[in-house]
């Protein structure tokens, strides 16, 4: 490209790229990966150690009978047995599969519902607040309907999960679509995007961060609904975490109950970190990674 001239003064490419170089300097920096990982991990370990320490201390005081409040040693011993027993892994497999299918269904329903409500004014007025009200309906209220509709099949479980999680997902979609910057929509239209193209190239990606937030909330509801819903259909050959949790409680197996709680927490942490990674990736792409570094 030839260099331009400006009122007799030669304008060099150097000037443009000098400006560019100055403007964008120092936009990407950060400590090393290793250091980040370590500084993210040690407080978790410390918190864990502290929690177990307090628990052990309380047990040592003899405040409650050991069968009411078992100590860490007992619980971790039981957790050890549990970890090598097929009960855990079969149960986890069943529950994870149900969670995945149920959540996927909830996401599908939530996306469609959210999209419909976000785009159609009448639907929004009709269903908008109903969606949030549905979130407050406890799972057990749906059990009779679930059995009516789906008998004693796994679909009944999915039904409860979907009713629990879809509202959150839909709310995320509505929120996301509401806040798509109108400027981007108009830019998209000017570039030739219409109808589906507009959704594909502009609205969907712009709404993504809010949708992910909705999915995360939805997951919490889905998992809780699943834990309750797994009692709906107890299939003898298929043990599940939700059923085991309830039976542990019914049989007053305090150590096993706590072991299952630990498993649930670990699953929760794993799923949360997956969502966290997705969220972070999106925010990094968008350049809105907050300063708190979370």
């Amino acid at each position: 490209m030839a260099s331009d001239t400006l009122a007799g003064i030669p304008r060099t490419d150097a000037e443009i790229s000098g400006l560019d170089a100055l403007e964008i300097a120092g936009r990407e920096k950060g400590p090393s990966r290793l250091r980040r990982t370590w500084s993210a991990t040690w407080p978790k370990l410390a918190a864990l150690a502290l929690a177990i320490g307090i628990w052990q201390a309380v047990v040592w005081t003899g405040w409650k009978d050991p069968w009411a409040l078992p100590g860490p040693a007992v619980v971790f011993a039981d957790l050890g047995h549990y970890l090598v027993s097929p009960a855990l892994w079969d149960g986890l497999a069943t529950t994870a599969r149900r969670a995945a299918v149920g959540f996927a269904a909830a996401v599908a329903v939530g996306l469609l519902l959210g999209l419909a409500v976000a785009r159609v004014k009448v639907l929004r007025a009709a269903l908008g607040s109903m969606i949030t009200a549905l979130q407050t309906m406890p799972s057990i209220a749906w059990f009779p309907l679930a059995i009516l509709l789906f008998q004693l099949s796994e679909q009944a479980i999915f039904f409860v999960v979907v009713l629990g999680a879809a509202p959150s997902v839909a709310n995320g979609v509505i929120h996301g679509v509401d806040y798509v910057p109108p400027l981007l929509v108009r830019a998209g239209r000017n570039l030739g995007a219409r109808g589906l193209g507009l959704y594909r190239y502009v609205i969907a990606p712009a709404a993504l961060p809010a949708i992910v937030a909705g999915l995360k909330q939805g997951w919490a509801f889905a998992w809780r609904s699943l834990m309750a819903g797994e009692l709906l259909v107890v299939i003898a050959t298929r043990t599940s975490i939700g059923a085991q949790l309830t039976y542990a409680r019914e049989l007053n197996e305090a150590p096993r109950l706590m072991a299952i709680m630990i498993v649930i927490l670990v699953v929760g942490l794993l799923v949360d970190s997956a969502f966290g990674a997705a969220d972070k990736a999106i925010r990094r792409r968008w350049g809105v990674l907050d300063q708190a570094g979370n």
Partner: protein
Amino acid sequence: MTATTTTSRGATGSVALQGVTKVYGHGDNAVLALDGVSLDVAPGEFVCLVGASGCGKSTLLNLVAGLDRLSGGRIELGDGVNPGLMFQEPALFPWLTVDANVEVPLKLRGLPRPERRAKVAELLRTVHLADFGRKRPHQLSGGMRQRVALARTLALDTPVLLMDEPFGALDAMTRDILHDELERIWSERQLSVLFVTHNVREAARLADRIILLSSRPGRIIWSTRVDVPRPRRIDSPEIASIAAEVTDRLRTEVGRHGQ
């Protein structure tokens, strides 16, 4: 009021507005934003529209771009011309890289992949951003983002460019540089440009013709040719004196709305 939509019958690159009227809202809330604006932009002409806030400059560009419906009058564009529109903010898609942003209109036009690649590279070279294709918008400075937006609009391969205060948010130095860039691209590609600005110096620096709109309702109240030879310099006395004249007219117009 007969609502007439945009029609396409003029020569490629020409823009013709006849009695364009735009009303927002209904009944009590109706706002007459534009009232019978007639204007011709010749192929390859650079026209600057100036006017105070709310005089309907953006409305006019949106109508020409077909993003809004006319309330009356007609707009004629060359056959099959879809004018490119640039906004004050770059309006880049933050989730796409620079390359991908520029590629969007090419994808939407259904160009095959290798052709798109080549085109994107060429456009980024045009705006001096050949090395930044893999970056994301937030990694660029404001001036660079506007250059990406320009490249993306040029990717539409249209002879008519509509620009709605595209450099309003930039600092003076970057703006000066982009004026030179825009002028170069305009003359290389023989574009017709309809350029909206608040900034009379900018208008004097760039325009073949400056058109002044009145406020509420928007009407053309004055226009002038800028016969200063190019290349021009925004600090030059000729530009300063034209700017001073337009400023005075604009101030009078603004003063009309005071107290």
